[in-house]
């Protein structure tokens, strides 16, 4: 627990940045588990990355709106557990397809970079 906190602190101070284009994939992946509002998506990414990734709202919301405009996700205003209406995002069929292609591309990229960077 304490070691994780030091890692998080270290990352926050030095700034870990997402690779360009991976945020969209992370959002689509998170929405695979069901409809979620913007705040929930941010929290889910933070939790499932063991607090290593903290998505700035300044990148999260533009990304959500971009994905919606491209038809990858759709939105609906629903009442939330907070007694207040929230905008819930949901994967569309096009979004599911996009997620599948991005996921396989990502796997390939990780394998390729892993090979290059592997200790000689």
């Amino acid at each position: 627990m304490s070691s994780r906190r030091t890692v998080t602190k270290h990352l926050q101070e030095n700034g870990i940045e997402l690779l360009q284009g991976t945020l969209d994939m992370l959002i689509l992946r998170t929405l695979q588990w069901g409809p979620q509002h913007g705040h929930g998506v941010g929290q889910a990414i933070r939790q499932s990355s063991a607090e290593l990734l903290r998505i700035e709202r300044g990148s999260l919301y533009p990304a959500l709106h971009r994905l919606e405009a491209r038809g990858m996700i759709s939105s609906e205003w629903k009442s939330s557990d907070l007694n207040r209406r929230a905008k819930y995002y949901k994967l569309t069929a096009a979004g599911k397809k996009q997620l599948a292609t991005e996921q396989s591309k990502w796997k390939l990229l990780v394998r390729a970079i892993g090979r290059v960077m592997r200790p000689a």
Partner: protein
Amino acid sequence: MQWRFWRWKQRDSDLNDEIAFDLAADAEERIRSGMPRTEAEQTSRRDFGNATLLKEEVREMWGWVSLQRLGQDLRYGWCTLRKNPLFATMAVLSLALGIGANTAIFSVMDAIMLRALPVKNPGELAILNWRAKRDSAVVQSHNGSSYDEPGGGETSPDFPWPAYELLARP
């Protein structure tokens, strides 16, 4: 245009609500972990970052995406036309015929009905007809066209030359 404007406004207020919800949810979490309400709300707002900048960015993005979509539509349309030359020819031809026919009919209507005649006071123009009882002593017979009057007798816009000269005198 009005509809579009309305949609932009709706989108704006949706974005405001969305941001407000994020702030509320974030503060709620801090309160649940024991932070006093005012402090929690302040921290959430600070943590959120620049909301104005965010709104600006999202708005710009909407505009950019709709432009991209227009480009996609145009390209798709062009490709479809290229793929079906017969369909494209028929479409272009029917459009050309439709537009041509409309223009022709409109120019005729425009000249006849909409444009005033090129005289000094077109509103004062009048059509002169003479009217006569049937078998009257004044009009025995005449050349040109005349019409039967509903009440008996006949009427015509044709005048003999001497009569025209008399009427045309200022």
